[in-house]
């Protein structure tokens, strides 16, 4: 265990993250980059950008609360130190996505109202299941919920959004690419650390599996709300703006309906969960579909 944790030291994090892929960035993107004009000039697309960004802020706030809360529950010093870097990563994500809301024109004095108005209730329930485990200082369930389920979800969502924005919105794509690099590290820690703990605490498996099933249901419900009520694709068609022909797991996102995109994202995330959970000795539980 000591050898694997040495790959997650703060020294390594400093070299790869602040002194690596974040060098010369400002709020996660290159200095001077701006959102495309269409996001400011079209009401439907502008509101959708704000709604989407609010979900990112809500998810990252949950991750910040969970990773900081898990430090005191961690059974060893090296895990505490890794979680210290994850805490700062998550706070950075909160900051860069909050800054995107400001860039989109949200005033500082209306931030709380905007977040309350657009936060998806199913995403809030997803977060509550995880934070309940963290509050109980349940390290195993907390790390599975945080570093495998939540981070696995974030990883795929960010990858899909990155694919959609790479050609259309370099500013947002750059912001996302830094967060994806962070999430990859967090998922790696979760898989490596939990495998050995599950072996020594097999009695935790059923509880953790139930948590994964519950969290997965609310994740799917969040996707359903997000895609089925999304008007951006129809609005782009209406105003004659083409969508980006971006590849995501072998499919062209530019020709898919929102419902097809929802199905693709859900299948991608659930498949990832299954692979990762099996790797650490936890049996994946299929959630019901909303």
């Amino acid at each position, binding site marked *: 265990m000591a050898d694997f944790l040495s790959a997650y030291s703060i020294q390594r994090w400093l070299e790869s993250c*602040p*002194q690596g892929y974040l060098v010369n960035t400002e709020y996660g993107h290159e200095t001077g980059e701006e959102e495309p004009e269409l996001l400011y000039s079209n009401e439907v697309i502008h509101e959708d950008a704000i709604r989407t960004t609010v979900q990112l802020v809500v998810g990252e706030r949950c991750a910040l609360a969970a990773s*900081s*809360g898990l430090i005191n529950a961690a059974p060893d010093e090296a895990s505490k130190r890794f979680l210290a870097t994850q805490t*700062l990563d998550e*706070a950075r994500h909160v900051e860069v996505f909050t800054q995107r809301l400001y860039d989109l024109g949200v005033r500082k004095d209306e931030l709380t109202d905007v977040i309350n108005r657009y936060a998806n209730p199913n995403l809030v329930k997803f977060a509550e299941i995880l934070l309940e485990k963290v509050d109980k200082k349940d390290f195993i369930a907390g790390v599975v919920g945080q570093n495998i389920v939540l981070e696995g979800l974030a990883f795929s969502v960010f990858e899909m959004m990155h694919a959609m924005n790479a050609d259309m919105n370099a500013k947002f794509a750059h912001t996302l690419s830094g967060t994806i690099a962070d999430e990859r590290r967090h998922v790696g820690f979760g898989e490596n650390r939990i495998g050995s703990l599950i072996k020594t605490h097999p009695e935790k498996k059923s509880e953790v599996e139930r948590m994964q099933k519950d969290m997965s249901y609310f994740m799917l419900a969040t996707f359903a709300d997000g895609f089925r009520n999304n008007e951006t694709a129809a609005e782009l068609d209406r105003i004659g703006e083409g969508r980006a022909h971006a590849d995501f797991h072998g499919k062209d996102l530019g020709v898919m309906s929102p419902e097809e995109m929802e199905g693709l994202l859900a299948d991608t995330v659930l498949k990832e969960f299954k692979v990762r959970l099996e790797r650490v000795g936890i049996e994946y539980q299929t959630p019901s579909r909303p």
Partner: protein
Amino acid sequence: MPVRAPEPSSGDIHDLEPQQFLEEVHSFEFWFQAVEGYLSGLTWGHRPDTPDEPLVPADRERLISVLCNYCVGETAALEGSSGLIAIAPNRLSKIFLSTQVADEGRHLEVFVRRLRDLGVADPEAEIERRASRSLLLFKRRLLELVASKDWEAAIFAQNVILESLEFVVFTSHAEDADPVTAEVLKAVIKDERRHIGFGENELGRRLADSPHSRARIAQIRKELDHLVLDTLEETSGNIGLDRSEHDRLGRVYLESVERLGLLR
């Protein structure tokens, strides 16, 4: 129609309005710029080519005891600051505290690394063996305050008392330490300065408006001062400070706490 956000400000941050000043100094971006300046090129807290001079056995033993107790203090600070994120009253404080969590984790890591460099095979066991009783009591009390979700008392214990103690001890120790330990301490001190600033600012604004809070915090100070002064005495002995220097450190610590108007 949507409007664009105003352009971010530039220039001296001290010219900013109070709220905007807090937005700047409590941000990840501010931390990022700050640590880039003084951590760049360091490995485990020091320049890789700094000569690691061999110590005579008695000095090495004393340094190991001192570093073990620094690790206890930094673990308290890591667990305290991470616990404080959950009860922080606003987003800016949460983000600042997350930068502090990473700082404290780094401090713990560089001190543990220094112990290994000095030949300590199992630093965790050595820390447990050499931990000062008064520092462990302080840590327990700090974590009780955090667990009770008492923001003012916990931020006082963590970012004023503990950070001030570390600041005065590390500053004094860095003056006479071996070159590697001195470099490690100097970078840590720069972080501590930021943490104390946050504590004084956050608490100062609250205490100015609330005589009740001031009396309550003064009571907590009374409870914690003797633990801090006991720790200071023990550590001063291990660092090899003479009596007058030890007394001076005690006064510096007391003055830094009294800056908040909390007289004994």
